[in-house]
């Protein structure tokens, strides 16, 4: 579009140059091609202990979750079912996302505390729990990480709604007698009864 054309060069001279060391401190993202991987290495065997200590309280010892915290492993073969379980192993397309996310956001409430070998070890354990690696002693590191592939990668495709849902651009939506008979109630939220009510504590069922 015209709006995305090459921008005119106007310089306001506001702000200052960011220093390399400043950028280094905040530039924590990791990409599937390995860009941004922090230095380090680890094994699932080493990671298990760390995971049990720092993660299992919420996610369960095997990533199965406790209570309503996120499930991190399992769910293979469920995506096309009535009850899909989306985990690193069953759903995520890229392993780099695990290292990126754990580094930036976990453990919940103590973010950006993991680095180096500990980080790689915990991620190795998560990959092991998800059958992505099968050898507890296999070393993963910033060198070999980009070679780790997840099973579901090929099942993602870019937004195509304007093609696949073209039928929703209707010329003349029906205005009268659009369906036969009186409306028939198929379901009511009241019957499910999980709505918090005003002035009451929430109802957990």
């Amino acid at each position: 579009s015209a709006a995305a054309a090459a921008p005119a060069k106007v310089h306001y001279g506001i702000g200052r140059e960011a220093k390399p060391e400043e950028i280094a401190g905040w530039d924590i993202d990791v990409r599937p091609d390995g860009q941004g991987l922090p230095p380090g290495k680890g094994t699932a065997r080493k990671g298990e202990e760390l995971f049990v200590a720092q993660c299992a309280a919420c996610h369960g010892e095997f990533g199965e979750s406790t209570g309503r915290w996120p499930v991190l492993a399992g769910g293979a073969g469920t995506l096309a079912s009535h009850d899909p379980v989306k985990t690193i192993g069953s759903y995520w397309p890229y392993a780099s996302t695990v290292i990126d996310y754990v580094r930036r956001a976990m453990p919940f409430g103590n973010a950006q505390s993991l680095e180096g070998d500990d980080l790689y070890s915990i991620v190795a354990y998560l990959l092991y729990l998800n059958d992505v690696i099968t050898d507890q002693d296999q070393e993963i590191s910033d060198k070999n990480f980009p070679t780790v592939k997840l099973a579901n990668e090929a099942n993602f495709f870019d937004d195509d709604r304007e093609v696949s849902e073209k039928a929703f651009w209707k010329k003349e939506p029906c205005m009268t007698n659009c369906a036969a008979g009186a409306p028939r109630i198929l379901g009511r939220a009241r019957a499910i009864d999980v709505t918090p009510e005003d002035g009451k504590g929430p109802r957990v069922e």
Partner: protein
Amino acid sequence: AGAAGKAAATEPGNPANLPPNVPEWSKTLGDGVAVRAYGKPSKHEANVIRRDVEWLTASRESSVSFTPLHELDGIITPNGLCFERHHSGIAELDPNDYRLMIHGLVDKPLMFTLQDLERFPRTNRIYFAECAANSGMEWRGAQMNACQFTHGMIHNVMYTGVPLRVLLEEAGLKTNAKWLLLEGADSAAMTRSLPLQKALDDCLIAFRMNGERLRPENGYPVRICVPGWEANMWVKWLRRIEVGDQPWHHREETSKYTDLLENGKARRFTYVMDAKSVITNPSPQAPLKHRQGFTVISGIAWSGRGKIARVDVSLDGGRNWRTAQLDGPVLDKSMARFYAEFDWNGQELFLQSRAIDETGYVQPTKDELRKVRGVNSVYHNNGIQTWRVSPEGEVENVEIA
């Protein structure tokens, strides 16, 4: 006289304060000016609040609260009632410690203070921000019996901000620049990949909402507005923008915010919020209290693809439709308010609304949507909502055939 007597008997109020009597507040002095230096709503409006659904999530720090749409009118969401979605609670930044860093495929990496950002040319625009998971609990059928919970993950605010384009021009883009990474300063360090084309089009680096500074829960002191696109991309407490040549495929665009179809495949980068509408009044939390007579149906409509062109309303569950009236400013990628009037005969109603945007997109029924998406998508549920109104005026969330 009997009927009039009955009507009077059901009127609310304390006779001591009603005519011919003169209430206390017409005799004595109230609080003076500036006693409430920053004002708040009347104590009688204590029920007009954001609410959450505790069973939805394990903790409130990673959860959502919903805007009470049934308690609002017009198109401006007051700042105190804007829905919240946090991944690690409200980051409470000191504005003096705020920095925005722009780096990566740029000629010169830049660092801005808040004062710096406020020196750039800025603009004011009203945009809706809707969480892609809004109505996500309704894929398998009517579940939440409240407009606040079925549709309350949306707000509509006038932002003041610097066009992101201006900041990128200031840094200078390398020719291979294609994507941006947006990153928040909260302890989820929220990230999303943003296509450069959108960044150069209409994104704003915003520091004000409805005139005043952003609220802490909405990203104080700086968030990004990505007009028409899912609110998850509107990164709050924005600390860093990295320019790159490919998307990052981070957790919020892989594990989350991808739309699982029936065949197990998943659509990704589904940014645009499809046209959608909902009747806010009446709705389960806002019943029709008069038993019959002149009635105004009110609701909101919006589209991530541009302006709302038209809204239709049905009283009989989609058998017949009438075109509603759009009121107030109808703006690009903003909520629009609609009204439809009718004379209620006191019989059961099945209310629906259907938005049409300027691209000709027509809001689908839930069944039409399920036919192409299945029920596992979680996100982007913009199907037509049905409210059943009983002869008593009670309203409930139903699915109908």
